């Protein structure tokens, strides 16, 4: 009798397996081309791009798996030989804390740049019930905010950056990543390079010993009021919550775009406050010095003197194997090579839409050299002429950077300030459904070019477009705290209220009714 259980269970398993195989048979056969599946792991910073490319190459019969578990995990896994490739923002061999992240001993590898992007400062700040969308910050102020030196939004240093905004005397709540991440690594690398003493002092206070330079784990000093959340969604989601007024975080540009939130314009060497749009990042990265192994020295980016350059720009790399160690095969190499060929050229088309910046031609060329080092990838035809990369031009210059618009005058450091919204709050209504609502300020689209210039201004307090003079706070026309638009969250809250009312009303009534039974 008891065997029923087992029979039934085995039947259930068998049934499940049958369905599974039936379904797999029903899916389009992929055996036509000789690509074998490959798996990788790593950066969640560039995951969005890798995910999109992975999807696009499916049509060529390539199956590429990618787990966005974080750069450090990707490097660890590549070292352990559990993945075929890894994606990381930082190379091996850097000292994080006091530990050197040693390269894999038995697995020769090469770095291949895959996509560029800017680290955006997403914030949630209201003044007088209206959301501030045109905040500007200098590098030093950012560093001071994230090292707990500046703690109030109306700090004189922030005021100096924002002459036209009446800043509230609200506490600044920096939101950092609680897990190890490439975003943190890039951000801290920038702080360590530019404001080493501030960052070093903070790191010491957090117990990291003698400064910490670049680190994947943002050290949190207890009692400073920092909030740590896991993943980009965690930090972006936290900043996004309406009640969390006064928060600021470093996150990939696309999160701010999709969350419908503004990002701070960051002061560059030329004295302009710029947004991490694809073009500005591309311009900024023109200053990168490429090392022999294709890792880059970003000091030139941080100090790029072009007025359009976004200083916190960087690359993400793919770490690819050069030998067939750890279950890697020539067949896998062929897939990886073809995949790399795709994303270095065609795939870069989609980078701006995803919130990244496409790679310039020099890096694509070097990338091609790296592809050749992948065992089995030799059969992949690499042709720069057929490479449909949006940055390429006939004369070899970076189209994107060349065509990047100059910043508006009102973005220049000084007594004036552009009124247009930035980041996700620039594209009005394009992000419906998120809790913040849109804005009435101008903006062309939500894909990165928005708000890049100061010529689309239509705030509640108008600015003189000719002179770039703006006189008042630019704020969201939607009153955030007073009359929020009706969202799913509100529906749920209403449901909760209903349920709670039921809690009050139902029990006695029920008890009566049930007692009769």
């Amino acid at each position, binding site marked *: 009798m008891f065997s029923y259980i087992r029979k039934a269970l085995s039947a259930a398993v068998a049934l499940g397996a049958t369905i599974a195989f039936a379904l797999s048979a029903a899916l389009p056969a992929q055996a036509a081309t000789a690509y074998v599946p490959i798996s990788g792991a790593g950066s969640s910073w560039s995951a969005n791009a890798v995910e999109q490319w992975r999807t696009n190459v499916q049509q060529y019969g390539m199956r590429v798996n990618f787990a966005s578990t974080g750069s450090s995990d990707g490097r660890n896994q590549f070292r352990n030989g559990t993945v075929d490739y890894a994606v990381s923002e930082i190379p091996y061999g850097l000292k994080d804390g006091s530990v050197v992240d040693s390269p894999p001993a038995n697995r020769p590898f090469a770095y291949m740049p895959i996509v560029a992007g800017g680290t955006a400062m997403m914030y949630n700040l209201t003044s007088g019930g209206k959301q501030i969308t045109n905040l500007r910050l200098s590098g030093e102020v950012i560093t001071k905010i994230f090292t707990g030196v500046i703690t109030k939004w109306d700090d004189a240093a922030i005021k100096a950056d924002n002459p036209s905004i009446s800043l509230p005397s609200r506490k600044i709540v920096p939101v950092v990543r609680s897990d190890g991440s490439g975003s943190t690594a890039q951000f801290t690398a920038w702080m360590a390079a530019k404001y080493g003493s501030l960052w070093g002092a903070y790191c010491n206070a957090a117990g990291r010993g003698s400064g910490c330079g670049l680190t994947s784990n943002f050290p949190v000093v207890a009692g400073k009021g920092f909030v740590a959340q896991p993943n980009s969604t965690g930090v972006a989601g936290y900043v996004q919550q309406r009640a969390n007024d006064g928060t600021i975080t470093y996150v990939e540009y696309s999160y701010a775009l999709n969350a419908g939130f503004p990002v701070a314009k960051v002061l560059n060497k030329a004295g302009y406050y710029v947004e991490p749009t694809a073009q500005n990042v591309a311009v900024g990265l023109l200053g990168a010095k490429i090392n022999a192994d294709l890792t880059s020295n970003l000091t030139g980016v941080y100090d790029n003197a072009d007025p359009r350059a976004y200083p916190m720009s960087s690359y993400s790399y793919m770490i690819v194997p050069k030998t067939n160690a750890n279950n890697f095969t020539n067949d896998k190499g062929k897939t990886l090579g073809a995949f790399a060929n795709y994303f270095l050229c065609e795939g870069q088309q989609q980078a701006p839409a995803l919130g990244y910046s496409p790679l310039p031609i020099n890096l694509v060329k070097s990338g091609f050299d790296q592809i050749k080092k992948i065992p089995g990838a030799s059969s992949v035809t690499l042709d720069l002429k057929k490479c449909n990369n949006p940055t390429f031009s006939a004369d070899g210059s970076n189209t994107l950077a060349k065509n990047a618009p100059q910043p508006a005058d009102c973005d220049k450091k000084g007594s004036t300030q552009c009124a247009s919204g930035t980041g996700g709050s620039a594209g009005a209504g394009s992000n419906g459904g998120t809790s913040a609502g849109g804005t009435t300020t101008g903006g062309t689209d939500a894909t990165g070019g928005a708000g890049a210039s100061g010529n689309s201004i239509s705030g509640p307090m108008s600015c003189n477009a000719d002179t770039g003079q703006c006189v008042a706070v630019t704020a969201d026309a939607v009153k955030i705290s007073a009359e929020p638009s009706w969202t799913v969250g509100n529906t749920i809250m209403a449901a909760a209220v209903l349920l709670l009312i039921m809690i009050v009303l139902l029990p006695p009534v029920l008890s*009566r*009714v049930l007692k*009769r*039974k």
Partner: protein
Amino acid sequence: MTNLTMDNFSAAPVQPQGVLADLDARNVSAWFGDHKVLDRVSLLMPKGQVTALIGPSGCGKSTFLRTLNRMHELVPSASFAGEVLLDGSDIYDPSRRITEARRHIGMVFQKPNPFPAMSIADNVTAGLTLTGLKVNKSDAADLIEECLTKAGLWKEVKDRLGQPGGGLSGGQQQRLCIARSLAVKPRVLLMDEPCSALDPTSTRRIEQTITELASEVTIVIVTHNMQQAARVSNKCAFFLAEAGTPGVIVEQGDTTQIFEKPIDDRTNDYVNGRFG
């Protein structure tokens, strides 16, 4: 959805406890789900007397007994019809509290069920605490002694009143349960085969207790034991449920009459041990 009745608390007579009272069941029917187990049974249980309910298994006498203090309705799906009058007022009246009915009409169960976690003394006063009656310490001590004496248990347990009630023997436990029921001063005491789980000595002890109590409280006892019914009761009712029909009272009357010259042949057969 619900029937509303005007409640009328003044109509609910506040009866003194401990005063003898008649219990009069009129046209009592009972169901478990769709299954009818009692069909319009009427029986007067006169004050100060012991009424024995006899009959074969499954004839509904226990169910009848449980309708007398509203224990029947504890079984989900159970339903009831008729009236049970305590001193002329219906205990099923919506304006009367169910707990009050049960306090006036106590019950001793087939299996002794003292509260094992409570001491003997606490077991006796459990009814008071449960119904929210406050007694001061000395009164409580008197009450415990009185009830245990009435139940014939005092001599055996007076030195260990603080020990748990679960530690007593079966017969002692049952007498503890009787004492517990007496402590709330019921006007009627229902006993559901109180001796069926006990040895002959304990049984005799309890029968003796019943006889002694009869003058203070109206007693209704269900028993399978003909001799017991003959020994302890003044009045007898013979229940019978034949071949799937609900239980009815075939014959009732004075115990001597029922046992010596029953009118109905079936009663005669039963009391003489010819069936059941």
